[in-house]
């Protein structure tokens, strides 16, 4: 059996990659994708613990999480589409009207 740590380390690496993407990329779609990576890192953790602790709840959570992620992408992409229509850009460093 593959040790638990392998999965956890994989999840951690994925999470850091996602976080790095969120913080550094300018394109809002890429940022959205990075968020998905972070979500999936969390899902891996859920499933890992569910498998190793023989508790089905973790898998259920993972399924919920995937469903919510799908909804979130739908909303997010809709927002981005409107952004593109309104301000001709989805570059995050140019979208800074909500400020002092």
């Amino acid at each position, binding site marked *: 059996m593959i040790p638990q740590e392998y999965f956890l380390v994989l999840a951690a690496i994925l999470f850091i990659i996602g*976080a790095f993407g*969120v*913080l*550094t990329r300018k394109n809002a779609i890429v*940022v959205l994708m990075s968020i998905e990576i972070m979500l999936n890192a969390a899902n891996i953790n859920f499933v890992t613990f569910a498998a190793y602790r023989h508790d089905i709840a973790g898998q259920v959570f993972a399924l919920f999480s995937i469903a919510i992620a799908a909804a979130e992408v739908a909303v997010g992409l809709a927002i981005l589409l409107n952004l593109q229509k309104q301000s001709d850009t989805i570059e*995050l*460093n140019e*979208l*800074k*009207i*909500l*400020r*002092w």
Partner: protein
Amino acid sequence: MAFADLTWLIPVLPIVGLLLAAALGKKTPEGGGYFVVGGIAVSCLISLLVAFEFLTGNGQVISVSQTWIQLNDSLKFEIGYYIDGLTALMLIVVSILCTVIVIYSLGYMREEGDRKRRYYIEIALFVTGMLGLVVASNYLEMFIFWEIVGLCSYLLIGFWYHKPSAAKAAKKAFLVTRIGDIMFMIGIITLFASFGSLNFRDLFDPTFFEQAHVDSGMLAFGLFCLFGGSMGKSAQFPLHDWLPDAMEGPTTVSALIHAATMVKAGVFLVARSFPLMVHSPDVLLVVAAIGGFTALYAATMALNNPNIKRVLAYSTISQLGYMFLALGAGGYMIATAGNNEGIAELGNAGYMAGMFHLMNHAFFKALLFLGAGAVIHAVHTEDMRLMGGLSKKMKITSIVMLIGALSIAGVPPLSGFWSKDEVLASAWNAGAVNSGFYLLYLFGVVTAFLTAFYMFRLWFMTFSGEQKEAAHHAHEASKVMVVPLMFLAVFAFASGFVLLVPDGGLPAVINAVNVEGHLIPGETLGLGWVEKLFTEWQTWLSIAVALLGISIAYLAYYRKSISMDRFANGWASKPVYNLLLNRYYFPQGYDAFGSKVVYGFSLFIDWIDTKVIDGTVNGISFVTVRWGALLRRAQNGLVQSYATVIVAALSALIVLLYIIGGLR
């Protein structure tokens, strides 16, 4: 049903008149004055019935009150009424005078036009306050009515507020009496803190007093503060200076508020507090000393004033001093009597003398003021130098004024004689206990002389001699003014005789309590007492000084065989003359105190306000604004920078928790 059950109506009815006048005053004659007269008259009727019922009853004090404010078990205030002999006497005096004077003002204020409505509304409110003050069942209730009459006094002094002098006088009256009112309030708080109750029913109950175990110093302090309130309201030295200025108001106001009723509230307060006062001889000594001194001091200022109303105002202050002298002397004798019942009875006589003089003074001084009002109404000036020779044109007024003047001068058998003599007698009797009272007696006798002089100076200057220019168009006042004058003249002549009613009369009604809290029975005076009175040298002395004063005034102002101009311009007497005319420079003293001390202090306070308090507030807001300006730059609108902060902070938190071991 007993009439006493209707007592609550007494202060309410004038308010009804007020509301009707306020609602309908513009459409009805006399600015709604008839409503007010009606309300006050019915209230007067009830007052007289209540007083009559009490005086013919068994003498049991009627005290009815109910809870008004209850904050917890010990903090509770009541509202109600308290009727004893003192209340009955005050009810009679106040309600009769209010009614008579308001009727008189129907004539006096006739030419005031639209302002009449305001006048009657304010008068009605005043009457409510005054009658409420008289029947109040505890000090708090009394204080509220006390403030209402103070407010009305302010409003009515400033009735002609477009005149700067009237506006100034109103402000002065308000501010000076305020000093007294604050002292009164401190007194009430002290009493409440000591006794836990403000009800007269409790405070005057000897067993309650016994159980309260109040520190005598604390009690003396509280009572002294109460007397401070009296000093302000009754214009006693050094808070006397507002009363002469208060003459800026209409003469009816001067008669009602500043001679007959409101200024008596201070005397009434001391008399009301007598069961407590007799436990503090020191306070009573102060009362007597201030009263005696004020009597003389104010009388001197009346000597050369050319303004007819101001002479009467000084006279009022002086006579109020007499009342305090009598109350103080009587109370002092009761307080120090111990087991000596003779002294206690003399003290009771002093107490009675004070209230007796209050009653008589209310009648004759109201008469004098209303007479002066009729004169002013006729000649349109208050300066007596422009009057003269009016007795031919205003026969009735001159006669009733003569009755008033004879009464206040103390010529037997008019009312003023009896009460003044009683006042002086009580001061003399107290001299046996504390020889300081002999000095006050001397003050009183000199005051009697001065009073006779200045009252007859007033009368001769106004009514005798050749007619001056102002007198040519003078005419007798209308009936609505003359009838009240004649009515009051009867009282001014005869009210002294209530002393002499066999087996009753005033001594049976007005009884002080001794230190143990028992009523001291008043000795019944009869014709035998009169016989005794006229064998004492003090009586003859006071009659002699009165006649001497009248004769000098006669020589100086009727025969003109003594030239007062010489006195006014003599090298030695001129400074004295000017000193008196300038009221001992007291107004200047007030002003100097106001402009130097109070203004300086206010500047200091202003400095604290603008620099320290505003500085602190502004400093806080400055720091806040500056920090805000700095911190808002963090809010740059870039989503990723926020996310960076979140991630960095969260990472730091995790690391921190790991280091201190929270993650185990």
